[in-house]
């Protein structure tokens, strides 16, 4: 009886994540795909066909027949979308690279720090999460605007004689993304560096490596799982980022998150925005699968 109970419990525990995925990912995703195959209508909801239980099986089949991939064709015909995707990938890529450049030394320093102060350093990395993300992004407007803190500092120091235009450029977006996503890069790199055996770098030095070579030949390759995890955690949300380009970026900034928002709210074109979202998801699934492959490999090596 007890055994049966525990077997049942084990099944239930396994069902929970699958049920979660089913209700909060797969079902919404199919609704999005279904809308992306519909056409716009001035109605509520603003698309056709609408399924009605009263129309029976015949009505259902008629509705299915109305589905078309016109919206996807539309995405390829208007260069706006291709540009927005490309620009999003580019901005996310540059931001991820910049985040890595800053996060790696931070994580390395934390991993080298004495055991006693490591918890404090970890705390400091997580600390910004205690204030609202939106407020922190707004704060950057105050810092980066022409009469903002950053320009005032540079003017006072005499490094520039005219305010730099940073706000409403791509640089402001890079700064915003790097700042916002830094902890997501630092933490996985830190955890991969922290568990590394210190005698490995000593062994590399003993065998003739300078400390810098020992880092590139041993420490960095061994921290790759952390680097990959961090890059994915920054890159994936950065591609679809809406708040940062909307608040810090300029009118010429083209990012897919903003395009999607425009289609959905300004144009009230749900089917096109659903198609935009579906393509975005497909673009991101590839790196996610890459990420999972790397994770599985790292797990395999740990064993």
């Amino acid at each position, binding site marked *: 009886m007890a055994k049966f109970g525990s077997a049942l419990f084990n099944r239930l525990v396994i069902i929970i994540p699958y049920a979660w995925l089913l209700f909060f990912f797969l079902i919404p995703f199919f609704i999005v795909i279904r809308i992306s195959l519909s056409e716009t209508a001035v109605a509520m909801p603003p698309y056709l066909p609408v399924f009605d239980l009263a129309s029976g099986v015949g009505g259902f089949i008629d509705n299915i027949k109305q589905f078309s991939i016109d919206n996807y064709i539309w995405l390829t015909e208007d260069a706006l979308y291709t540009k927005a995707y490309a620009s999003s990938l580019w901005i996310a890529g540059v931001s991820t690279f910049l985040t890595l450049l800053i996060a790696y030394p931070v994580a390395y320093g934390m991993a080298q720090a004495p055991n006693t102060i490591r918890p404090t350093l970890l705390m400091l990395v997580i600390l910004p999460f205690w204030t609202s993300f939106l407020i922190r992004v707004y704060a950057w407007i105050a810092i980066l605007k022409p009469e903002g803190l950053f320009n005032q500092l540079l003017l006072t120091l005499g490094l520039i004689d005219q305010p730099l235009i940073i706000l409403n450029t791509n640089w402001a977006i890079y700064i915003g993304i790097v700042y916002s996503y830094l902890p997501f890069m630092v933490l996985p790199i830190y955890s991969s560096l922290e568990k590394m*055996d210190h*005698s*490995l770098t*000593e*062994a*590399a*030095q*003993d*065998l*003739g*490596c*300078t400390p810098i*070579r020992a880092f590139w*030949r*041993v420490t960095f*390759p*061994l921290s790759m799982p952390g680097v990959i995890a961090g890059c994915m955690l920054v890159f994936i949300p950065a591609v679809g980022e809406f708040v940062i380009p909307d608040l810090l970026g300029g009118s010429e900034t083209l990012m897919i998150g903003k395009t999607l928002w425009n289609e959905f709210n300004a144009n009230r074109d749900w089917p096109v925005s659903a198609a935009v979202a579906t393509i975005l998801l497909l673009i991101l699934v590839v790196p996610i699968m890459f990420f999972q492959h790397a994770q599985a490999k790292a797990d395999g*090596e740990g*064993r």
Partner: protein
Amino acid sequence: MKSLGSIRRSFAPWADPTSIPFIAVKNVTKKFGDFVAVDDLSLNIYPREFFALLGASGCGKSTLLRMLAGFEQPTSGEIVLDGQSLAGIPPYKRPVNMMFQSYALFPHMTVENNIAFGLKQDGMPKADIAERVDQMLKLVKLDKFAKRKPHQLSGGQRQRVALARSLAKRPKVLLLDEPLGALDKKLREETQFELMDLQQELGLTFVVVTHDQEEAMTMADRIAVMAHGKVVQVATPPEIYEAPNSRFVADFIGDVNIFDGTVSAVGNGTIEIATETGFTVRVASTEPPAVGAKAGFAVRPEKIRVGRDQPACAPLNAAQGEIWDIGYLGDMTVFHVKLKDGKVIKASSLNAVRAVEDPLGYDQEVWISFDENAGVVLKD
């Protein structure tokens, strides 16, 4: 191949005042904050010597090894290798290699690449590297495992990869930090002899750190017994065992019975000590202490005879007691004998025949006795 014994028998450069030490540790002190890890330590290690640093954990032996490797710098004093001071020379420029206690194999590289790692750093031509790696793999009998990653190997195989990697660059000195610590007993004993053969074959100087006295005794030409950052005694294994220079060494190496007492007579090459246990010991002594001085007498269990009859030498070097405990170990039997004053001593006897008629039993009245040259005088 010549057997080890024939080569070893004549190997004693430390006894020759004209021989030049290969490694000279000169008054080296290493402090970590207030803690003195190595305290004004001096040592000479000779070419082709298998030298063991033996001591309990925290005695400074590993710190000394790390100073030889270059991972720590002495706070004061100097280390000279082959006539060249090592002061300020970083680990990657020293002609020494180390085999780490954890082996420190690079987990992202195959066995082959682990061994080739140091050679690549030196910019050796590819063909030469391949040849050397092949040679090292054969040396440690791992030729079939070249393409494996470290996590696909057993503990003993990893140990051999670590050894091959540290030997690949043909270092002048190989430093070994607890090289056999992670192996099980059987494998450890086999590997001890493999290491000795390898050292002889390659003609290298080995410095090994260990806390296992049996390991040090088996492998080393000389042992330095360390305690509290200092060297207590440096000598060959037989000297360390048979002629410990202090109570600490006598007690640290092997089993020993120590009797405290006062020197009662000094004779021709021998002295007599009246022990607190109540009997008098006559023992050979080359540098006798003065009459009336406090002295200890140390004697190993295997040099004590246990018997029912009063020995001829009594009352000297003999005492009466009863059998308190018997430990049968197969190859020998250990007796714990309780003497008249309550002191329990250990005596062991070899089981040279399969069945003894009327063996000694519990609570039996016995005599213990030993020869004049069986034990040593401890002055401290």
